[in-house]
């Protein structure tokens, strides 16, 4: 296997971990994993994200709410008192 082929398989591990690959590619990735310890380690690091990631609501990924102004100084005041 040349370097480009390996890179392509390795970079497919994200979709593989999320079970989003078409059957033929998934089979090829699985076959590669059997013989590649590095890719197995890559997969082991990202695979546990698949289930909790499902709970993320894309609608929440907009603007982040900011804490009220003055909270920092109010904390410093309380500590000083």
């Amino acid at each position, binding site marked *: 296997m040349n370097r480009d082929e390996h890179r*392509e398989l*390795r*970079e*497919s*591990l*994200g*979709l593989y*971990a*999320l079970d*989003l690959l078409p059957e033929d590619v998934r089979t090829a990735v699985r076959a590669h994993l059997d013989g590649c310890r590095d890719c197995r380690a*890559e997969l082991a*690091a*990202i695979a*546990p*994200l698949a289930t*909790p*990631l*499902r*709970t*993320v*609501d*894309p609608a*929440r*990924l907009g603007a*982040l*709410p*900011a*804490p*009220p102004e003055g*909270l*920092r100084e*109010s*904390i*410093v005041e*309380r*500590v*000083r008192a």
Partner: protein
Amino acid sequence: MNRTRGRRSPRTAGRLFDLRDEDDMRAAYDAHGAELYRFALRQLGDEGAARDVVQEVFLRAWRSAARFDPSIASLRVWLFAITRNTVVDHVRRQRARPVSPVPGDTLDNNGAVVADFSDDVMLSWILEEAMHRLSPEHRDAVVETYLRGRPHEEVAREFGVPAGTVRSRVFYGLKALRLAMDEIGVEL
């Protein structure tokens, strides 16, 4: 996985905070106050309550500053642990309030908040925060393919990139998410 538990987050790495010092307290707030506030807001659903909790968190941290050991946990992990406890205490206090003007069904809602305060909620919230730290390209690739369930070829056409690029963005996006989780000591 415990491997990275004690690693200090990049923001506080190389610097020791002493919360008994006013300037360090300000610096600690600047580094972590906003995310602690968002966490409390997510748990409590009330801006005033979230504000009170964050104030209480820093007061508690200040009182126990002498016990803070950065070789065990980063300041960020420590403050998050205090925040979790403070949120739980806050909800308990709300429920225990003897003369309560709130109707019974609101008490049930508070009960649900307690039941809901699980590691799953924490994990989901941390993932959302971590998603914000990804580059827009990586985030969009993960959101469109996985969260919105669209075929990656279709997403690639919309972004005007080859399908292989979307594949690699999902891969590097997940790696970055994992790193963000490790940084704050979340076990997966």
